[in-house]
């Protein structure tokens, strides 16, 4: 299963976290418990979120061409994640933790979704499924990737994205800078 690390933030007079089981935004009066030590990879990712100009970013999507078998598999996985939806966060997290590496890295995995009908129509609303899909299907994610789930604390809007090896692999997503990362999901080293 993907390990969860809470990244509490104090803003507008309260502490804020995201529940690692329900995926909901939580407000606390006192500082919530969080991991005393963060993995080095996660520390680096948090630094990149604070300074987005230190992240590598490419406006062109990957040109990787997957096999027919992997295209079928990717559809099955993505549709399962859609069925689980945002409300069954823990189940989605468990499902994404079961590895099915069909892409070299998360960049290829996310690019492959451009052919999914639902993604084309609702891509912006599927950030959590996109991130879980990339984590499950990418070979490199356990070694170098982190899923971040953040919130805009003023509007309560939430967003999920990945940082892998110093890169934000989703070329169409430039909105991630507007969200404070409050929960990180990654495979333990």
């Amino acid at each position, binding site marked *: 299963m993907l390990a969860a690390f809470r990244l509490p933030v104090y803003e507008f007079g309260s502490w804020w976290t995201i529940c690692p089981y329900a995926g909901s935004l939580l407000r606390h009066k006192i500082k919530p418990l969080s991991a005393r030590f963060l993995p080095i990879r996660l520390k680096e990712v948090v630094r990149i979120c604070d300074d987005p100009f230190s992240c590598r970013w490419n406006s062109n999507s990957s040109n990787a061409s997957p096999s027919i078998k992997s295209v079928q598999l990717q559809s099955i996985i993505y549709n399962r994640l859609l069925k689980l939806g945002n409300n069954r966060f823990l189940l989605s997290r468990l499902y994404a933790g079961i590895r099915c590496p069909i892409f070299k890295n998360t960049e290829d995995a996310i690019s492959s979704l451009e052919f999914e009908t639902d993604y084309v129509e609702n891509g912006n609303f599927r950030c959590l499924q996109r991130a879980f899909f990339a984590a499950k299907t990418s070979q490199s994610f356990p070694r170098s990737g982190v899923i971040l789930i953040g919130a805009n604390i003023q509007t309560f809007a939430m967003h999920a994205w990945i940082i892998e090896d110093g890169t934000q692999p989703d070329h169409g997503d430039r909105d991630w*800078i507007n969200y404070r990362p409050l929960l990180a999901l990654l495979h333990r080293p």
Partner: protein
Amino acid sequence: MTFVGNTCRHTRYFNVKERRFVDESFLPSLDQIRTANLKNHIDNGACFVFRPDTYKPVIDGIIPIPGRSAWTFTNNQFVLCRSNNTSGMHGGAKSLDEILAAASRFLKISNLGPLALEMSGGLDSAIIFVILKQLGVMPILIGYMRDRYEFRTERIIQENFMSQGSIVVRLTDNQGRPFEQLCSSPRHVLPDLASLSHAAHALVAQSAAEHGAKTVLNGIGADALLCNDMQGQNATNFPQDFAAWALADSWPNASIYQPRGMKYISPFALSPFPHLAWKSRRGLPGDPMKLNARSIFANLLPKELVTFAYKASHDGWIHDGIKQAASEIYTVASIAYKFYQNEELHPDKLHKQAEKSAFLSDDELKHFLSCVAFSVWIFGHINSTKICPTKAP
């Protein structure tokens, strides 16, 4: 048929019954305000610009005619007869040199006076700055330095440019919030959403005036020019849909800048730039990240604007502004409700919505803002000389 042309930079008001413009000093009477049409105002509220051909009258018989536009009025219908930007199109700019040459010619023939520039930290104002700098013109830079998390990328870019400016005015996040000082919004002819951010405009205008600027430049209109899909029918329609008059700068010009003897203009909307951009992007698909513009100006812009295409969201800032102004919204709505007697303006309702604005849907938010703008309009007319008398619960 009546020809209705407005050569000013601000909106003028046409009386369709008398078939003539009303005086520049025109302000509606209290009877006209009492019988104004709130529903029509809410319907108009979705638009940034009031086009007379689609405008639903709020005051009976009074139609706003946007600045720099010409229309014909026949059988109670307005028809656009001319768009400023379609004339004289002689090929689009493909290179930076062509753009700089056009800008240089334009600056020589325009009488803009000392310039200030609203420096937001985004691409649009950055393009204006680098063009001016390349031509040896150094504007006064005025920027709201917002300390919110989501503006951290824009702050870096603002600091980068401000370190190059000779005169720099840094306004803090606590100054000029949206919806601030609603009680002191200047009286205006028709309710307008732009009146809700009058304090922010006034602060920029005042800062520019203190440093001797006569014109404040802004980046309004760049999104349409640099992002829109310019293929097929879109390209054909573009010169009609995008014109200098179709920008959201009219209200600030008429209510904030003109009384100070200043102008508030977007270089993107001025000849020759709209047609340079239109011609050069004709046939190209939509470019929401403005990658084409970033590549044209790659040698002049900082790498943060060339390598990255981040865009800070203003949503949190706006909702914060609404929440902070909830008490003043209550005050304004109380007076407006007493006078106009319409449940849409009930102060309790608007106050409650202001407190929870982050949970409103897009349509509900537009409706709410239209009601607040209407209340501000009424308040300005009936209570302009009094100090806010009613406090929120």
